[in-house]
């Protein structure tokens, strides 16, 4: 004879049924006790899979989600779209502000910009760079390991932007760093250059050649 199951049990059963629905990778299952929610697609990719496939503890939420109508899903998506558009507008705004700032403060016909690039970096751990233009210090920049790593990976830092009148000028650069045997040392380089009409770009190139086992410092004038 089949009696209907006790009502108070049916609740949990229905929830558990839903629990077999796989959920998103990020919806890992925390225990209700104060255990931290697992990191998403965390240390190994498979974790994402595990989290993604089944989360019985999400049962109640899944139940709620299941109960949620299509309206909710549509509403969420509409909000998400709205946020997408808004974010794009913010990015565009950031860009336009950046453009305005530079065109206003450093117009093309007077702009001079100094870049730093690093090739390899075994023999010189960059610590700081000091720039002087026409005998006036314009920048004294300290480098962190993260920034040096970015340079070594191929990044080219725009270290300085300023304005100069047309004519002859002199750039003096002091590189401070650590050499291959942990010794601190300082190297200098200078360049006389002509500022014409239009922006002037100068590149400070730090290269080290295995052959020489020494860093070399060159200033390239991008005519």
């Amino acid at each position, binding site marked *: 004879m089949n009696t209907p199951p*006790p009502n108070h049990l049916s609740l949990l059963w229905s929830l558990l049924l839903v629990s077999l629905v796989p959920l998103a990778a990020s919806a890992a299952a925390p225990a*209700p006790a104060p255990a931290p929610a697992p990191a998403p697609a965390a240390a190994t990719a498979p974790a994402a899979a595990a989290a993604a496939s089944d989360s019985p503890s999400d049962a109640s939420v899944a139940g709620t989600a299941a109960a949620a109508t299509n309206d909710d899903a549509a509403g969420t998506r509409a909000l998400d779209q709205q946020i997408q558009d808004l974010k794009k507008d913010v990015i565009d705004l950031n860009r336009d502000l950046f453009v305005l700032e530079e065109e206003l403060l450093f117009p093309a016909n007077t702009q001079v910009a100094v870049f730093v690039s690093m090739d390899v970096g075994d023999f010189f751990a960059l610590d700081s760079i000091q720039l002087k233009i026409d005998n006036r210090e314009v920048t004294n920049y300290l480098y962190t390991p993260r920034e040096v790593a970015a340079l070594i990976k191929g990044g080219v830092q725009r270290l300085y932007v300023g304005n100069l009148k047309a004519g002859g000028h002199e750039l003096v650069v002091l590189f401070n760093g650590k050499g291959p045997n942990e010794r601190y040392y300082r190297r200098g380089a200078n360049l006389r250059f002509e500022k014409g009409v239009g922006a002037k770009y100068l590149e400070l190139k730090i290269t080290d050649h295995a052959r020489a086992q020494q860093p070399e410092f060159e200033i390239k004038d991008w005519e």
Partner: protein
Amino acid sequence: MTPGRLSLGLAVALLAAAAPDVRAAHKSNPDKLPSIRVQDLHYGDVLFHFWADQDAGLEALTRLEAYNHWQRMPHHAVDAQLLAAGLYLQLTMHNEAGARFETLLGDNIPPGVRNKAWFYLGKIWYERGYYDRSEQALNRIQGSLAPQLEAERTHLLVNVLMREGRYDDAIARLRSWQGPADWMAYARFNLGVALVRAGRLPEADPILTAVGTLQSDDDELLTMRDKANLALGFAYLQADRAAQARVPLERVRLDGPYSSRALLGDGWARAALGDYQAALVPWLELRQRNLLDAAVQESYLAVPYAYGKLNAAAQSAEYYEAALKSFSSESDNLDAAVARIHDGHMLEDLLGTDKDMRYGWFWQLKTLPDAPQSRYLYTLLADNDFQEGLKNYRDLNFLQHGLLRWDDSMEAFAAMIDTRERAYAEQLPRTDALLASDAPTRLRAARAAVDSRLNAIETGNDVAALGTTEERAQWAQIATLEEQAAALPLPPGLERDAATDKLQLIKGVLYWRLDASFKERIYEQRRALRELDAALEELQNRWVLVQNARATVPTNTGEFADRIAALAERIKSVRARLVDTSGQQSVYLQTVAATELTAQKERLEAYAVQARYALADIYDRAAGQADSAPGRGAAAPDASAPSPEPAPSPEPLPSPETLPAPAPAPGPVPEPR
């Protein structure tokens, strides 16, 4: 790898692969990433910020778009576009990224790069709940990805299929799937679950059992093992096969995250087999745990139910009473929590005292604050929609903060432009008048005139022309006297000749003097002219500079003023939208949270109702037996079946010692569904 690094991995892949001239990895360290060959300085600057800045690529993207606007990266057209798309993706702007990938990922892009792009896009769409788009993106992958990514791709697709109820497709995909060892367990797990959902339990058993018995030290794998056992166990319970359910359930770790459910299920399995005494073992254990757990809540009822089955009515009643008390107090807590959510405090609790955070889609909450009501939100946080909603909220706040930086700048710019305008208002008219005077042309004309005059003098040997003022006056005087002399009606004779001779003599001397100095004077004049030329050239140069300056500057100032004003307006408007949208997102989150908590409360309420019915039934029966009315006793309904109305308890609860002998079981053991 964290998702964040996966996105970076995409970006590097995009960079490295799209740029054909990739420098070889550094000789001394083959594990170092290959350097990117940068041909445009500004592209290099973007890369620098991409790697060095701790802002999920926001600065890098801003610069990328700006440098693009100025067309400063001509050699990196494709690289820059790909990187931009990758950055948009990293910033959770999947619409933008998707649109860009659509146009960018043509045949000119290496397939490896294309595939990776589609993979990450598909993955983020899955995270965001756009399953259809996720499937589309993932299906655009041609060929295979790297094994780990390929495995994840299959997994994502399978999840999409399962969500859409297409179990047969999912099963088909997983059946013969082979992948890296660490993924196989997960694939088998998913296959097992799909089979269960498709109602194919016999096929699911060996698969889930295999996963449920795997040996590992890895905590994640062990957790998955627990899940497999749990899923199999409950599948059997659902199919009324309690004996078979027990086996996997007892494999679930007691100290793992699924132990509560396993204990509950194990209890029901034992109960289904008629052994209520044995069922009490896991249930009593479970009952000591945190009441927030749904399984624990159920155990509060399951325990007295078992005691009822064992005819220990007093204990049963006691436990029902205790359950009611606990449910009631927990219900009050839930009410307080819901109230707090509606007051708007939930997000503060979740996010600490501040509301803005890290940008980007790949982080998640690891710990929760200590506020009491936040414990209810643990289950909520497991919900993907909620998580993504929370990220949106924090992203919006981050962006709001980012805009603050420009407020001071805008003021400074406006002041700058104002000053500039006023300065120009003074200077420009003067400058324009000066330029209009066209001095160089006039001066050059004058110089030309002087030059030709000098030539004429030289050619004509016009010594008198270069005389001093005095000399020229004398010369003129002599000329006048000569005229006068010629005009005089003097008879030819000595006097006239003497006068003429004297005049000639003076003229001769003067001429001789002029002639002697002529060459020198010519030289002097020419030298002066050369100096004039030098000055004229200098003037010409400066003139050009002034003209150039005049040409560029004035139009800018007006333009700038307009641009500054327009941008200030845009900042205001965007800021308002950010505030409004994060408000909407916050309301959404609150609604989800409140709904969840209300659902929890309803569950408790339902359990409480059951408990009350059961209690009433016990009291009825006790009252009935105390009255010694056999019919009534025989007709007394099963303690576990719902009574129509809970009767009030007329007398104090009988103690166990005074209980009569156990009555025969009133009906068959109810099968758990």
